[in-house]
């Protein structure tokens, strides 16, 4: 019979292993290798703004759907 503690420990280990792969990828690609010229900086900023606006539109649509129900 496996105790609750053991189960939690096993689950923890499983997720730690999975997340360690992701952490390793994050570490490997922590610093962008591309030279941060003004053009790159502006492009990334505009991309962020674009995505934020798109997310706001999606959230607005979601609210409209919820309200209509």
């Amino acid at each position: 019979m496996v105790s609750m503690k053991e189960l939690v420990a096993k689950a923890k280990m499983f997720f730690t292993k999975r997340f360690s792969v992701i952490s390793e990828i994050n570490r490997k690609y922590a610093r962008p290798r591309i030279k941060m010229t003004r053009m790159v900086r502006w492009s990334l900023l505009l991309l962020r703004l674009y995505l934020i606006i798109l997310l706001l539109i999606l959230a607005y649509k979601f609210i409209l759907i919820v309200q209509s129900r």
Partner: protein
Amino acid sequence: MADKMGFGAKFFYKYRRFIKAIQLYLLIAGPGIIVMVADNDAGGITTYAATGAKFGYGLIWFLVLLGPIAYIVQEMTVRLGAVTKRGHAEAIFDAFGSFWGWFSLLDLTLANWLTLITEFIGMTAAMAIFGIPPYITIIIVSIVMFAMVLQGRYWTWEKIAMLFCLLNFIYIPAAFLVHPSVSKVLGGMIPNLPGGLTGELLFFLMANIGTTIAPWMVFFQQSAVVDKEMREKDITWARIDTAVGSFFTVLVAIFCIIVTGTLLRGINIESAAQAAQMLMGINPYVGTFLAIGLFNAGFLGAICISLASSWAFGEVFGWAHSLNNKIREAPWFYISYLLALLTAGAVVLIPGAPLVLITLFVQVIAVTLLPATLVFLILLLNNEEVMGKYKNTLAQNILSCAIVGALIILSTLYSISILFPGLFG
């Protein structure tokens, strides 16, 4: 006599050079043709069928215009893949860091999986016309698609995929069967706005753009170029391959429009399967051709989209991710491929699954990824450290920036018009 001999030898030399060039092209041809023909996937065929039925031959000129646009975008992926020997997902992680990397990878996975569902919807709907139940179609298709990658050679997979590309030309005999007016078809080549610039026309223009450039195409072709081990010296041939592919994709789209524009003019079409079913009543051969074409379009789209995801995962997680690997050498690559197929197929079989909603949602999700993909592509192509002498020239930059800007604006408007129907009148 000497002159005659000289001419004969010259002719023979030129002939040999031509044959050699063809042989070389056939060796390198593949990724460009496959990605472009697969671009005419189930969603694409639906868009063309609906465009033809709505506006007749009136928008053929617009499709002709979309061919070079698709070429310019895909040519950049060829150069990037051949020079860096990296797929697009890995290139984004490496150049822009993990935030943009994860964003692109997760968005690509979601967009591809949803698109895969739409391909299965297209395939099952097409086969249903012949009385084949959806579960049989999904099982057989999944087995065939998995068997295609399991044989352990990229080259074999590519040549099988190219055979399926040939089947995409089925719309050409279908168009000849409907006896279109050649003068009217040629008239459609002249830029015009049938019925004026209405909201409906704008919607159709945006839908056609949306089917021409999809994020998965960039990821797929770059990874395929890498898996095929193309080098810088192959870029010229890979460009020709991409140009030939973009010519074929436009050709197929035009013939599809001719079919529905001739026989279903003025009818609102909601899916290519519906068009095929209607055509069965008018001309069974044409209906059959359209249904086979729709199935093939869904199949080609599905094999490319699921591979694009698996390649991207392999690149980022560091798994072996080549079609040249056996299943024992690259288990995660093949498992992720199979998993995508099975789960997407299973969704189609769920009774009452919101398939229409999924079809619309695909466009919205794709538009969150498309700008990032294209902007990263241009930034990478301008990086001298990465591209060396293969970086974009000023002319290429002007052209590609204009195209990418227009693509982003129009695909965003299309996505908003899906979310808020009637917004553009």
